[in-house]
């Protein structure tokens, strides 16, 4: 069963048609990558899924529920978390305060504590820095915080928008490691990436987006060996 299903989605900014009718799905347990050049519309798609912007037409189904018109703040409690592009941690708050906001919709204090512990296990650095003001952390640390914050809602599906952007190679490897571990622990992942090679290496399936349209889709493995993809996205 598809956990997330997007059908014929169109999105516009004023007169600019950013997404021109795309369909894709993410099955439970998968890591699905969405790759494409700058301005292809990747962020727009994620923002539309989590209700930060409205769709022009088409529908978005999450666990068979139509969430196309659901208000943004109601999505996370349904089990979908979003690690936004550019991290967007609350820079004036501490690491711990950021993490607690990630669990904003959850009620059970004991369960929140338990999730907090698993997040600290996954990101020991966040534990060491829990009282640091988020805005003073390095870019890589902020990325970890953004991911930890999303995991605090204990999501079934996590959307990640360019988690490796602007990070040094060591951090990039670390982030991809963590994505694999998150996936192994049972969370479904929709991953948007510029780093197509890395993304295709850890993904099960992938979609290639060009100026608002899906131009290619398939098993990540086969896209990794596709000549056109290698030329356009892997720089070979």
């Amino acid at each position: 069963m598809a956990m997330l299903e997007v059908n014929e989605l169109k999105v516009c900014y004023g007169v600019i048609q950013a997404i021109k009718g795309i369909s894709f799905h993410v099955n439970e347990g998968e890591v699905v990558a969405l790759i494409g050049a700058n301005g292809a519309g990747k962020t727009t798609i994620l923002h539309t899924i989590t209700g930060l912007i409205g769709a022009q037409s088409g529908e978005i189904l999450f666990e068979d529920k139509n969430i196309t018109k659901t208000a943004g703040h109601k999505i996370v409690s349904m089990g979908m978390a979003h690690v936004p592009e550019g991290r967007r941690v609350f820079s004036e708050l501490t690491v711990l305060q950021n993490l607690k906001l990630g669990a904003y919709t959850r009620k059970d204090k004991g369960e929140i504590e338990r999730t907090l512990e698993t997040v600290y296990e996954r990101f020991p650095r966040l534990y060491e820095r829990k009282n640091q003001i988020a805005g003073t952390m390095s870019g890589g640390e902020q990325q970890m915080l953004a991911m930890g914050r999303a995991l605090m809602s204990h999501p079934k599906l996590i959307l990640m928008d360019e988690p490796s952007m602007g990070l040094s190679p060591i951090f990039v490897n670390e982030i991809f490691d963590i994505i694999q571990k998150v996936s192994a622990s049972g969370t479904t992942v929709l991953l948007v990436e510029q780093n197509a090679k890395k993304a295709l290496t850890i993904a099960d399936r992938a979609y290639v987006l060009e100026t608002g349209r899906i131009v290619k889709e398939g098993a990540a493995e086969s896209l990794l060996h596709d000549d056109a993809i290698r030329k356009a996205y892997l720089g070979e």
Partner: protein
Amino acid sequence: MRFLASLINGISLGSVYAIIALGYTMVYGIAKMLNFAHGDVIMVGAYAAFVMLNQIGLPVYVAIPVSMVVCTVLGLVIERFAYRPLRKAASPLAVLITAIGVSYLLQNLALLIFGANTRSFSSVVHLKSLRLFDGGIIITGEMIVNAVVCVAIMAGLTLFVNKTKQGQAMRAVSEDKGAAQLMGINANGTIALTFAIGAALAAVAGVLMCSSYPALTPYTGAMPGIKAFVAAVFGGIGSIPGAFIGGILLGVIEVLGKSYISSQLGDAIVFSVLIIVLLVKPTGILGKNIQEKV
């Protein structure tokens, strides 16, 4: 002696400014808009209390909470129908102009209902004055209440914003509305809550102000509103302790200026100070230096 007396007067006046400024700064910090109608909400709160206390004869412990409720409802209505529809508007100027419009609307409604006559508001404070130095300095009950209430409100708001879940949600919305929504925070609801708090504080400020300075007219809120805005900018707009410090300083400067320099130029002195502070430190005394994100 005269200095000390002026200082105490200034702190009392400044406490009222600070309570109003706290409302300004909360709304600005979270909704990123200058609610220029805030001063007129004070006037509405004062009239509501006036009607209950002086015309119906209800006790103070009924009149104050009810006038806070009246102002809260008014604040929510203004936010919902005047400001929210414009929140996505292209220009922040549209909201600013609407706020000025709401301000005049409230003044004219008050004029229509209560007329232009100055009403004499009877104080809600029934404490004995303190006489120090053989009557050289008199501290009235109103002065004490103003300062105590102001400190209590400042402390309460600080705790609320830093320690409660709703307060954290406010800070999140204030910094990044979109990211806050991704946490499941209802940004519109949070902004409305901020307006409600600001308006309830305005009612308190209205009652205290008219208890200390008993003349009530439809324009009673306008000037203190503007001065409280100055105080909020002075302290660093968006900052709760900033509004507190800014309000107190402004009151002190105004009273000292009136008593030592010129009683006519009091307001001019207040605004000159604002200009000087902004020239030296554009973000205000406790204003945040906008830090670049990595």
